[in-house]
């Protein structure tokens, strides 16, 4: 739906041939595109403004390196600026106090507080061996307390018994008492969703905070959030002492610009990312991945790093040569499948490549799992060399033969062909991004000289460090 920033900048800089330093005019032209990219990603306008201003200042006068285009250079500077701004101090929870440590969750309705409470409890229990008590102070939403109790049972974490009719402040007091009596290490307080303009509920939240004196006050924010995120962040941080942010629904396909808005407004670290409804779907927030995502570039940095570790050099050279010609046949798909298996399976690859969304969706639709990789390899193995090089000739009759030969079904063969088609499209997209030259170079040389793409993405060797001054993004 949206063009990636690299696509956009590619057009802006097509006219620009010269090397040397980026002029003010170059940068201003590019920044118009940066601004739009950020707004499309739902970064709040005031945050976009100040970010663009600071990045412009940094970019003007920068030398464009031989290995990259001016567009790539700007993308790198912007990307690094985003990482800098999103990045944070430690993500770990501050629960190193005389027990019980209190962690309180706050946020808008439906942002994911209750689910995240259970996820954090599970994490503390499993990873740090903590004894955790959860209590729901939500007396508004029907069955809210039952929801937390059910989740507690699922992860084997204690929840405060429900007392009908008790108000939030009293529930909090009871939770603290229980925790002291029963020697829990951590008490997690889940609260009702509230709008930042609902002063009555905001007062209630403050009242709870006063008596519970939490060491962690986490604002839970939906990564699908739009421009309003700044208002929310501002109001909550004015009224309680936030210590961090959790971004939920990062498993969606939103660009997640709210992350940047949150950082800019609260100045607090984004501690976790929610990546699913299951209770183990909680990750440490990764600034560089999210920066790539905001710019619509996928998680290319990690991909480049991972690829460099595992890809066989000769295969890679052959592939790079073909890709340079814009070809991607079934032989390439087969090689890719092999590499996928080596790189840690499909899960590891998901979401890392720009433009891969469609292929990913096709995989998911086809119910592709790691076992499927073996089947696909068998299907491609049952094809003639001609079929592999020119998949379009595979008609119904051939499909039946291939299915028989590989012990699969025609349906599976169809799925494989569809996936190949989607991937070919994705590959074209990578090419268009201007990343190919770098990608080819990188693939060719293995981990050593990550040249263009590494430079573009700030991942690799041979790139000079960014100029000083980036740390002014830090709040």
């Amino acid at each position, binding site marked *: 739906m949206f063009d990636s920033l690299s696509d956009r900048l590619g057009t802006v800089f097509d006219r620009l041939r010269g090397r040397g330093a980026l002029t003010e005019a170059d940068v201003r032209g590019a920044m118009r595109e940066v601004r739009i990219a950020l707004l*499309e990603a739902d970064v709040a*306008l005031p945050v976009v403004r100040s970010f663009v201003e600071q990045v412009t200042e940094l970019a003007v006068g920068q030398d464009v390196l031989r290995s990259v285009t001016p567009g790539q250079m700007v993308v790198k500077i912007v990307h690094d600026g985003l990482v800098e701004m999103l990045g944070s101090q430690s993500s770990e929870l501050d629960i190193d106090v005389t027990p019980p440590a209190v962690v309180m969750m706050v946020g*808008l309705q439906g942002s994911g507080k209750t689910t995240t409470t259970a996820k954090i409890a599970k994490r503390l229990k499993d990873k740090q061996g903590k004894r955790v008590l959860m209590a729901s102070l939500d007396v508004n939403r029907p069955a809210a307390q*039952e929801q937390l109790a059910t989740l507690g049972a699922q992860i084997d974490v204690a929840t405060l018994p429900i007392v009908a009719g008790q108000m939030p402040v009293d529930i909090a007091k009871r939770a603290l008492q229980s925790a002291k009596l029963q020697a829990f290490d951590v008490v997690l307080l889940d609260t009702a969703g509230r709008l930042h303009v609902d002063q009555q509920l905001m007062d209630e939240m403050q009242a709870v905070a006063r008596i519970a004196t939490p060491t962690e006050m986490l604002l839970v924010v939906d990564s699908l959030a739009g421009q309003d995120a700044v208002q929310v962040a501002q109001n909550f941080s004015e009224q309680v002492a936030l210590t961090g942010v959790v971004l939920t629904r990062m498993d969606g396909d939103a660009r997640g610009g709210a992350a940047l808005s949150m950082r800019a407004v609260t100045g607090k670290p984004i501690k976790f990312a929610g990546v699913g409804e299951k209770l183990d779907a909680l990750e440490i927030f990764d600034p560089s991945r999210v920066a790539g995502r905001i710019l619509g570039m996928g998680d290319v940095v990690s991909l480049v790093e991972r690829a460099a570790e595992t890809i066989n050099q000769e295969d890679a050279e052959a592939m790079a040569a073909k890709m340079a010609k814009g070809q991607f046949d079934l032989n390439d798909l087969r090689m890719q499948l092999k590499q996928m298996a080596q790189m840690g399976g499909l899960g590891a690859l998901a979401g890392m490549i720009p433009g891969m969304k469609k292929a990913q969706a096709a995989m998911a639709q086809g119910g592709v799992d790691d076992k499927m990789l073996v089947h696909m390899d068998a299907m491609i193995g049952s094809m003639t060399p001609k079929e592999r090089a020119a998949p379009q000739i595979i008609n119904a009759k051939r499909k039946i033969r291939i299915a028989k030969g590989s012990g699969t079904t025609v349906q599976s063969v169809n799925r494989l062909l569809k996936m190949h088609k989607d991937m070919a499209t994705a590959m074209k997209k990578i090419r268009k991004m201007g990343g190919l030259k770098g990608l080819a170079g990188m693939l060719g040389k293995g981990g050593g000289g990550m040249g263009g793409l590494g430079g573009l993405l700030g991942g690799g060797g041979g790139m000079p460090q960014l100029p000083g001054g980036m740390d002014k993004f830090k709040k």
Partner: protein
Amino acid sequence: MSWTERLFGGLKRTSDRLGDNLSGVLTGQTRLEGATLDEIEDVLIMSDLGPAMAARIRDRLAETRFERGADIAAVKAVVADEIAAVLGPVADPLDIDAFPRPQVILVIGVNGSGKTTTIAKLAHYFQELDYGVMLAAGDTFRAAAIGQLRVWAERLGVPIVTGPEGGDAAGVVFDAVKQATATGIDVLIVDTAGRLQNKRELMDELAKIRRVLGKLNPEAPHDVVLVLDATNGQNALQQIATFKELAGVTGLIMTKLDGTARGGVLVAASEQYGLPIHAIGIGEGLEDLRPFDPRQLADAIAGNVE
């Protein structure tokens, strides 16, 4: 506090800003200057219209002539007109006109958008119109989702069909259609688990629910209502596109317009998809459902309110 105040109470912030900044700029010229247009564009962006839609409206405003001179009120009115023009004609409430009964309304959307609460509000609305309503607890996945809908059903005094937690949602909705048909219910509203539109498996499940609904009554579901959260940004457009394609959305309801979010994505959505907008949610209570009024939203975004 009246509901319009609640809606507009939140709207004060950005709308005031439009007025504040304009007051310095305008001196009765007949065309808007660049700086004024910039300011308007910014307000549109902050209302979640998205950069492309905002730029388009800006272009149209650049061509507008203010014969009597542009003062703040005139500018706001024109901005509101442009937005209203895109939003299209009028409110389009859900009508109960299915024959044979029941009319089956399937409610879908991403996680936490407000589906279950909206179902309770809709049930209340239909009850007030003297229709017989039944609910189906099609979210068997989320913890206590069934309990949540059951509490609403009890408060409303309407029958509810449930299955076991973790059970098959399609089975529950099949039973529900059967029971609703047998008991002569007018409206059956079906709750579903929240799902992000990029989850293929979950979207397939929705297609299955649709198919099962149609087994006993080929017309069902008569309405497929996508519930959108006003605090969501541009991703809402993707939600509409995907749910429309894979689940046959027939109309929209936007919730959480009682906050400071403007729901400006509806403007771009109207232009791109032209789906009817049945209602808006302005709170967590049963009474907090309102008909969608394009003029009101347009005025609100433009700050064209007293």
